[in-house]
């Protein structure tokens, strides 16, 4: 069933519209405080928005446009998986998973059979008799996934389901989610680009309680229009007015590149390019590269086999040898150059 949600929560300055087509997974991306969790809580019915509508398939779960309607969370048919597994500590793993079917009125025996089926789906059959306190973080999250799926929800909400797991456990749980989410209607909150790429068909980027960008995951990550999407995709993004084949960005920064057909002179445009396409110099190099930006180094960090040089607006990747040669430290003045052939310019 498809989800259509338009929500306004003035208390938290959230005003968004989100759609999840039937059988697809949509990732809600955005910095902390962007309104992702508020959106999820409103769809689940855990908070009541001031205005808007939440529709799941043909069923209106919430509306406050003239007429008013609020279906409580237990009647929505929406499953929720949180950061922490939140397994009921007083019930065994099996009874945790059987909780949903039991609440729907299923007799104990059948509910437990259903629970065993879902535990098998998440490779956790052998945990059935344990108490939640005796599980590792990854095991607990697997059981929580089985518990959410055992109610056979029409829509699944995932709130950063991997963020509480350590780096060794997260990949296997991510693989599990990839398997069980296939064909399910899912809204996923994350700040991890890997989750978006591996789990989501589409992404919606929130910032300051508003949708700033949305579209298919691959397009948003290769052609970002928001600085947040560019940052998690590891790209430089300069937004400004288009002047010929140059984007005039903040503080008069001029970035030349290849302009696509959709862009119109004078309109807002973005120039997007990889940090690997940025050259770093102590003094302006010979010849005249089209894009030459003076900047101050703010930070240096290892990035794979390279070193990423951060400045106020742009980042550059250079080799450790080049770094030693330049003898850079934060606070140094540098000249950054970008080849026009490596910059994509499109409507912002």
């Amino acid at each position, binding site marked *: 069933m498809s989800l259509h949600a338009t929500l306004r929560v003035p208390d938290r300055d959230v005003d968004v519209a989100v759609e999840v087509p039937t059988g697809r997974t949509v990732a809600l991306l955005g910095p902390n405080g962007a309104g992702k969790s508020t959106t999820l809580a409103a769809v*689940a*019915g*855990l908070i009541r928005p001031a205005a808007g509508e939440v529709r799941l398939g043909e069923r209106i779960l919430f509306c406050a446009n003239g007429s008013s309607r609020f279906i*409580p*969370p*237990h*009647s*929505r*048919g*929406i*499953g*929720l998986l*949180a950061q*922490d597994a*939140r397994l*009921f*500590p*007083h019930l065994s793993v099996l009874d945790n998973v059987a*909780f*949903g079917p039991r*609440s*729907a009125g299923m007799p104990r025996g059948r509910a437990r059979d259903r629970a065993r089926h879902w535990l098998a789906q998440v490779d956790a059959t052998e945990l059935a008799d344990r108490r939640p306190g005796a599980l590792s973080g990854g095991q607990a999250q697997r059981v929580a996934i089985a*518990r*959410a799926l055992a*109610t056979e929800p029409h829509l699944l*909400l995932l709130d950063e389901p991997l963020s509480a797991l350590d780096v060794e456990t997260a990949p296997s749980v991510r693989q599990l989610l990839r398997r069980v989410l296939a064909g399910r209607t899912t809204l996923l909150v994350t700040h991890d680009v890997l989750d978006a790429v591996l789990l989501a068909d589409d992404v919606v980027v929130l910032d300051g309680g508003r949708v700033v960008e949305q579209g298919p995951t691959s397009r948003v990550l290769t052609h970002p229009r928001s600085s947040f999407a560019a940052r998690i995709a590891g790209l430089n993004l300069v937004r400004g007015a288009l002047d010929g084949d140059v984007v005039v960005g903040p503080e008069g920064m001029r970035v030349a590149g290849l302009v696509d057909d959709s862009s119109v002179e004078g309109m807002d445009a973005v120039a997007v390019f990889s940090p690997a396409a940025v050259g770093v110099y102590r003094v302006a190099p010979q010849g005249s590269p089209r894009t030459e930006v003076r900047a101050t180094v703010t930070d240096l960090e290892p990035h794979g086999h390279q070193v990423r040089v951060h400045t106020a607006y742009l980042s550059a990747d250079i080799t450790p040898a080049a770094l030693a040669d330049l003898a850079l430290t934060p606070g140094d003045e540098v000249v950054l150059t970008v080849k026009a052939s490596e910059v994509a310019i499109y409507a912002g």
Partner: protein
Amino acid sequence: MTRSTRPGHAAYPRLGLPSWVFVPAALGALFVVLPLVAMLTQVEWSQFGALVTSESSRAALALSLKTSLASTVLCIVFGVPMAVVLARSRFPGQSVARSLVLLPLVLPPVVGGIALLYTFGRRGLLGHELDVLGLQVAFSTAAVVMAQTFVALPFLVVSLEGALRTGGQRFEEVAATLGARPTTVFLRVTLPLVLPGLASGAVLAFARALGEFGATITFAGSLQGVTRTLPLEIYLQRETDPQAAVALSLVLVAVATIVITLTRRSRTAL
């Protein structure tokens, strides 16, 4: 002095505690313990058995246990919903409601007894209605239970509300998204999770009911076997038979000690 390196002690290193605080702390502890010791020295152990099993003593002890149990049940029946409403819902005037509910904690029990008398007594607010129904509440065993419930209820509400707030709503939210109706969430998630808090609250309420004196003597009087509970019996015996009073006091001390032990055990189980 070298610090113990056993694992159990290493977790609590003595950090910057000024040495002088041990003096007032020890004096305070002495102030609490010494009177109990003094009482122990006064007990005529040879007559102890006879004193605590005399007819009036047995009647008072039985009445005390019976009424305290009854009022603990009433505290649970009314106190659990009160704590849940205070901890989980929001309504106008909530902080005022909480203060009023907790009032008996700081009110002198005698005042509570007078308040009950002017509510349920023959000339009280509801006295006429109760009379029409043929009910005489004041100076009956029911009045003892009511007086004890009045003073003990806040103990249960306070400790349970605290447990509910500490636990938070995370599990209840998940239970709701799993399709559990509010009643199911309450019975299968909320209550089991606060059971240790409920147990310690009930034990505290029982202990308070057992020791209740002022409200009981004001609202229920002192009729042997009907309203004369153990504290009232001790107070009366003190005039006529001090030995019996001391012996019965010791019984109450023993009960209180058991109660505290039970509470501490349920706290650690939390």
